[in-house]
């Protein structure tokens, strides 16, 4: 399987532009099956001024290809932490723990954070682990002095500045962005099907609230339109 080199406009000059584009799209679409693995450009080189020209180094026979910028889907976590048991409604068998009991950093900082192992141990020190392999794993991590290497589910690009404390402070409920996570079991992130799906933490979806969310009126009153203009400013979120 070879990726064709970029269509040369001069050799293809007789073909109308839209058709040429369609041809290019189709030829990309026909790439199927196994291919060479992309690697990350190394920054451990001995060279004092390391630099690369591509973030990912494509294999030799691949020309510049449009690459998805979205994180790899997360299929599993090191421990199958079940939100519905901890945060779910009592009538559903949960304990209705407050989100911020564990994710306490959210009210102060840009991060929501995951709880320190000490927080888990606060209860789990006293909970039997027999017959519960996930709790055994939890105990083993604690005894070994190793933090649990959770996989990041909501991963915004590095050039985005998202401040949890501002949203928590403004009265935005966790479920508005994260969905009804108290009903979910293990937190995973599926393959992103569409850029246009709501709740997938796309920029357009964020801007929706920044333009329309009622909390702005509630918090800012007469200054609301100015605040909305500020919320739409690129520099508010892009760093």
């Amino acid at each position, binding site marked *: 399987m070879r990726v064709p080199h970029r269509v040369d406009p001069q050799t293809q000059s007789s073909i109308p532009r839209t058709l040429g584009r*369609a041809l290019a*799209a189709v030829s990309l679409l026909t*790439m199927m099956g196994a291919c060479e693995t992309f690697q990350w450009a190394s920054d451990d080189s001995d060279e*004092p001024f390391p630099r690369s020209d*591509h973030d990912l180094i494509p294999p030799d026979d691949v020309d510049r290809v449009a690459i998805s910028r979205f994180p790899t*889907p997360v299929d599993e976590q090191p421990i199958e932490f079940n939100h519905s048991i901890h945060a779910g409604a009592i009538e559903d068998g949960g304990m209705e723990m407050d989100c911020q009991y564990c994710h306490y950093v959210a009210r*102060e900082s840009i991060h929501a954070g995951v709880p320190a192992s*000490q927080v888990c141990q606060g209860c789990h020190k006293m909970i039997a682990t027999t017959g519960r392999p996930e709790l055994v794993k939890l105990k083993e991590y604690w005894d070994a002095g190793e933090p649990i290497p*959770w996989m990041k589910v909501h991963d915004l690009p590095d050039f985005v*500045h998202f401040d949890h404390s501002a949203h928590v402070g403004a009265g935005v409920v966790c479920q508005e962005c994260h969905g009804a996570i108290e009903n979910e079991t293990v937190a995973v992130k599926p393959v992103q099907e569409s850029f246009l799906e709501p709740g997938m933490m796309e920029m357009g979806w964020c801007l929706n609230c920044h333009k329309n969310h009622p909390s702005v009126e509630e918090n800012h009153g007469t200054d609301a339109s100015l605040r909305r203009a500020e919320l739409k400013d690129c520099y508010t979120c892009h760093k």
Partner: protein
Amino acid sequence: MAGMNRRDFFKMVGVTGAASVAGCDARVPAENVIPYMVQPEEITPGIPTLYASICGECAVGCGVLAKTREGRVILHEPNPDSPVGGSGLCAGGVTSVQETYNPDRLQGPVDGGETTDWGAVLGKVGAAVKGAGAGGVRWLGRYRTGALSQLIGDFVGQSKGSAVHWEPLGYASLSAATKLAFGADILPRYAFDDAHTIVTFGAEFLHTWLNPAGHAESFKNARDPFRGDYIAKFYAVSSRLGNSSARADTFWSVKPGSEADVARALAKLVAEKKGRKDIASSAFLKGADASAAGVDAAKLEALADELAAKPSVVFPGGADAAGANATDLALATLVLNDVCGNIGKTVMLGSGQNFGPVHSFTDVEKLLADCAAGKVKVLFLDGLDPAFSLPADANVADALAKVGTLVVLANSAPEGVPESAIILPPGSSSEAWGDSASHKGAYGLQQPAMQPLYDTRSVGDVLLAVAAAASLQDPTPAEEDEEEGKGGKGKAGKGGKGKAGKAGRRRGAIGADKDEDEEAPPPPQLGGQPAIASFAAADFQRYVAGRWHSKLFTGSGDFGKWWRECLQRGGFFPGVPETTPKLRANKLAAAGATQSISGDYALILFPHSLLYDGRHAHKSWAQEVPEPISGYTWNTWAEISTATAAKLGVDDKGSLRISSDQGALELGVFINPAARDDVVGVVMGNGHKAGNRFSKDRGFNPVSLIKKGVDARSGDFAWLGTSVTLAKGASENPMEQLKGSEDMDHRPIALESYVDDVLEHPTGEMSALAAIHRIPEDARLVEKGIHDMYPEPEHPTYRFALSVNLDNCTGCGVCEIACIAENNIAITGPFQHQMHRYMSWIRLSRFFVGEGENPDMRFIPMMCQHCAHAPCEGVCPVVATYHNLDGLNAMIYNRCVGTRYCANNCPYSARRFNYHTFRWPGAYTLQLNPAVSTREMGVMEKCSFCIQRIRDAKDEFRGETVPDEVLEHLPACAQACPTDAFTFGNRKDEKSKVAIESASPRSYIVLSDLNTKPGVQYMTKINFHRTGGGHGDSHGDPEGHGDADAPSGGDHH
């Protein structure tokens, strides 16, 4: 496909293309999110934690705030609560954070080339010390003050050895001069805020000499027209226009080696004018005559009048005057300071600069001779690189090879150290405890801001462990008093006696202090261990705390509480009343003969303003930022005058071959119009044979051209004295001058005003005192409001703006380095620099405007001007850059597609393009600021006014406007600048400092006739001479008569 817009089409093509290669995971890899095991109380992930500490790069110990994120230091900011070192940092201070992340530093102790463990190696060293016998244990190290100085002194004393504290560009001659003149065992401390006249004989006091950050703050105050009714006039008298002299108002170029004559002549004149006959007729000033030096007698007399009339300050020479009569020069300046009445006013001796014991090169030579003779069983080498700093005939490597056990306390092996040496890496000052006693009344406290990155131990901890292994006993009180009586330098005065007492040391000791007739109270506990300044201390933290308890803690209350307050503040600064010792006129022996250097060209070795004596060469920022005068990076150059260049047929594209009787070097050329025709300058700092990837085998070490020599009176190393021959070199100059245009070309860029105009018109119309191009405006259009096609955009709340004071700017480059540190700016290296692909967001441009006595060198830091009518915004095809509501020109990296049209359009050349994805080697990635993204190839970047800091400030003051005090030093450049040249703020607030400065007569817009409406304005440099006519060159127009030649569109000459 119909009905789908262009963006969605490309997205679809992108994702489906990716989906088809999805099997090989072409996406950004999934990331982990790692929690704490037990979260420390004071750390909140995402919020920086600041630790007050001190910079460890030199003995001053300026206060810093170590900004940490998630347990790692990312920045060193100045500590506003510390009076040591002023309110900014010097170049050493802002680069100091790179010491921690040096990618090539040793990660554990090394013995004989093999990694070893601490227990074994400390035991080995201890045994060696124990068996060394009298005089067998020696110390050769850098200047140390405070607790470490005491510990070193006790250690070598109790092991019956001796210590030599020396630095290559050290202060032995100044120390000797102070002893001679005042009988004081201290260095003078120059705090010259109230000086009306500043005179330097070459010392780089604003950049690297003694206490540059502190001097810079005094300089700022002395030049402040609103502080008094005067502006301090700055004279430089030296053989080379160095970095600090470049800022002078008047420069008298004198023959190298003759500075002492001028200083003595001046001292004699002033002494006579002030009626100090005892001084004027002393043997020292007898026959003082400046004419041979080339100084006009009338001008000298005029300067003497100035000095006699008002407070002043006189600095000695630097490396350029460190010749055979360096002490005479230093002594002359001290005498001059005394007869001017400066002692106790601008030159402090009571609270003199304390660098601990200061030894001379003669002491070093004796030590090296003892080493070569095999008399030294254990030598501790602390923070020095003597084989690099000293010439070949000092035979350093031979001497080191003959030492029984060589223990090097450094983060990597220095030059000339034999393979068999033991190297004990101390880590950086961000990872260790310590203190500094920079002057009486100001004691800085160093605390670690992070866990040590590697298996390193600080010098203090090593000494305590070795002392234990060698079974050393603490000195008895009698011995200790004797030590203290010997000068007590490095020990913070004797205030401890009779008060809380030296608890723990005195218990049961024989010969107890007669003031104490009861048993001393037990030492305070610190983390379960007693805090005592003795070999029995559990670690150096307890040692420091114990020393502070016995010497500084004057209360009887809770020591722990006081200690915590000191930690939060960054030290203890009680101040001390000043004393004015008397000048011992009868001790001033006759001066030595003027040094004369035969031959065509005298060689002057001068310190690099960023690399200093080479100690910062392993830090990439110090190498990457252009040296402000030459604009050169990553290499060593030779500086010659225009005439010399013409004579030899060289230009700055070629090289110069410099030959002395010791060797020859071929170096890239820098032509300095202010250089003397009989002098060639070579910069120090590079040419390391041992170092890390940034310093090893880079550039040339000019020490290979000289041989050892001393100034007889002090034994200080004589840098001056070599003559050389010059010839055109064969090779090309590998360096480029990275400082912008060569000259202003009649464009109003770096402007100046005349001092009398400034003092007479402190307020007035904006730019009244700046010779900008005044475009005539038709009053009828102005009346209708249609004279300007581009109205001011709406800024509802803030209009962030910067005011840069060119009179304060000394061209030190600290702003550039602070910006690089804060904003994750890439280091591109020498090869990219050949293509001028240099990423620093601030360009420190330097223009040579004058000549002769008024070189009028102008430094102007240039960054994105955040124009309200920006030429770059309209040409971006994807609107990656736009003008935001707060007045910033916003640059959104992920939207940029890299057409580079914006950079093409920018008249200020403020934008930088990432031609590659630059990366950070090794541990340098830990220094990156998480609040700022790193940019990829194809993306344009530029100054953002530190938007991340603005955002944080706005979050902190949610619901209100950020107060001006918070904004004033908000961006990294404004915070770090040691002369406070930057004022940031909200120009919409008329009461803000930036609004007041921007509206002042000295304030102007660079290239104002382009009507870019920038957020950055500059205040003119203040000159003491009127320059002739000509646009952009002349002073402004305070009376408002209008400039008849003002161009209207074109540039008329």
